[in-house]
């Protein structure tokens, strides 16, 4: 800040020395002092200020100060009736601790584990500085409970008479049912479909049921088809078979030839 102000008279002095031949008579001794100072200092006259480390003042540097509220605080006041799972207090950190019949959630939320009446209290025997939120089972009770007395617990259950056969029927294994009087009975499992003829079907490709390969292989046997045994020297039978094969081949070739010929003729 000081430097620009000091430089101003020096600049004036330099300009005047260039323009006029009059030697440095007019310039004061003070100005020369400053010029000497500048000659010693390597800072160019063009740099007029220095930036110091400082705090960013603009943009997002200081964070948003006014976000949406998180709706923290007491959701149930003292003496209010709550049931298990009711949220009593939402907080950041542990300003309040879970006392009698209460628990603390993942985000330090205090919630009730028993039906009862909310009490805000301190328990110096447990911890000298902590403040607790508890649920008393009766409204007239005050927390904390006396330390050496038996805990007050609620059963929260009903006794139900169950008939023996429905009560103890449990499935113990595949297709077996354990009955009420402990006798084991076989049960039918109809998960697999059956063919009309009584053949078992298996799951084939594309989720379609089909006959098993070994059943297909037995089809001829089941149909009662008899194959003539092969006799090595039976030339007549051999001629019959080869003639039938040749005729079948010729027929196949004829079909192919018709199609192929048609295609070629078109091209011509």
């Amino acid at each position, binding site marked *: 800040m000081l430097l620009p102000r000091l430089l101003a008279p020096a600049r004036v002095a330099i300009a005047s020395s260039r323009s006029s031949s009059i030697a440095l008579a007019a310039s004061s001794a003070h100005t020369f002092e400053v010029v000497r100072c500048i000659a010693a200092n390597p800072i160019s006259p063009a740099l007029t200020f220095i930036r110091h480390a400082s705090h960013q003042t603009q943009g997002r540097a200081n964070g948003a100060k006014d976000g949406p509220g998180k709706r923290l605080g007491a959701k149930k006041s003292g003496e209010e009736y*709550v049931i*298990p799972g009711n949220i009593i207090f939402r907080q950041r950190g542990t300003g309040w601790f879970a006392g009698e019949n209460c628990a603390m959630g993942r985000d330090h939320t205090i919630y009730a584990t028993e039906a009862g009446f909310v009490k805000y209290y301190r328990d110096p025997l447990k911890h000298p500085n902590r403040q607790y939120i508890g649920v008393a089972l009766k409204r007239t009770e005050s927390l904390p409970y006396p330390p*050496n007395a038996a805990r007050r617990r609620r*059963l929260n*259950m009903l006794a*139900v008479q169950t008939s*023996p056969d429905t009560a103890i029927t449990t499935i113990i294994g595949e297709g077996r049912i354990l009955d009420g009087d402990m006798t084991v009975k076989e049960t039918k499992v109809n998960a697999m479909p059956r063919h009309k003829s009584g053949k078992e079907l298996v799951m084939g490709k594309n989720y379609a049921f089909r006959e098993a390969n070994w059943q297909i292989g037995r089809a001829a046997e089941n149909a009662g088809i008899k194959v003539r045994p092969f006799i090595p020297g039976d030339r007549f039978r051999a001629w019959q078979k080869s003639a039938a094969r040749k005729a079948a081949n010729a027929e196949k070739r004829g079909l192919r030839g018709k199609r192929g010929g048609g295609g070629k003729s078109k091209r011509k």
Partner: protein
Amino acid sequence: MAPGNHAVRPLNSCLRCVRQTGNGNASLVANSARFLSSTARTPEDVQVNKTEKVERVDKFPELDPATVVGKRDERRLIRFRGVMPIGSRRRRAALQNSQNIPFEQLPYQCFQDARKVLQEDRQEKIKQIEVARLRIANLQAQDEAISGGKQAKENRLRSMYNRLEELKILADINDPVVKKKHEDGEEDMNKPIYRYLADKQWRQYRRKILEQRISQLNLVPDILPHLDPVAEVDLAFGRRKIPHGDFVDSLISERAPRLKVQVFDKGERLVTVVVVDPDVPIVQKDGFEYRCHFIASNIPISPTSTSIALNQLDLKVKDTTAKHIALPWLPPTVHKGAPYHRLAVFLLRQADGNVIDTAKVGRSTKRDGFILRSFIDKQRLTPVGVTVFRTKWDDNMASVMQRAGLGDQVNMEFKRKRVEPLPYKKKDGARYR
């Protein structure tokens, strides 16, 4: 096992055969041709009749239970002499080559010097014990007026006795033989040093576990307001040991358990054993009640007599007034669906000279609604030990209930009560805009 021993064994067994032939054992002469085989030839050989058993004992005279090594020799020892090998196989192998010098005479200079120092210290402590005893005798003989009143005299005497006990322990605490015996379980619990070491060991780990179970399972404050166990109580049903707080099958807990009680202070005292279940569900009350499963009184216990078999307490007692059991064992039962029951076994020390009339206690005590706190106050008892096990509904519970005379409750099942949700209050519309 030393490799030399290993190599020699087949030869040894072979030589044994030869030796027996020389002895002229008629039954073994026939076998003498099988020099190189030490195994039985036919199944008949394996069958051991009485005469042959005696001969077999002669056959293996060199088998010493302290040094026997190898599976076959161990089996022989067990089978033919009926003696179990001592210690581990490694220890026995090491003992084979040792010179068996008594511990005190081990020929190490530094060891002997150290022993000398320790022995001098022990002599010093013994002298101090003598002096302390003399002082106690003098003080006891002294008139109360001179020693500053009855209370002051008693206080002084008590502190002198404490010092005496302390000196007794200090005299033996550095003895390596004492330490060895304690670690090997050969301790004499009548001696204060062994009781001290056993107590220290118990407090180091097992008592801490017990303390944790007491607080985890809320025995304090549910049954008693305060509990400081000073005696170790182990629970077992038959041969099955139950760790503190373990779940026990209802069929196993149908019969009364066996307690092993170790006290760490001297003398015999009478104790009462009470088993309480604090988790009996009462639907009308929407809460829980206590039930007493067992009471037995006037059981003598000392550091050396440690076993209390709850089902055999009165087997040998003929006199009806001297019976121990006030309330016999009631098998623990749990309804289906109900939360687990804790069965706490308490060992209560009776005040000196306090003998409980068990017949009267049996008549006057009700099982349901039994409150241990008032029972302790009434009978002047001090809780000294505790253990606990748990039961829940299992496959055998129905039959156990039938046999316990609760057949009508077998089909009773506990189900959770529905908690009515709070009515939903719709907030005013302005806040939703």
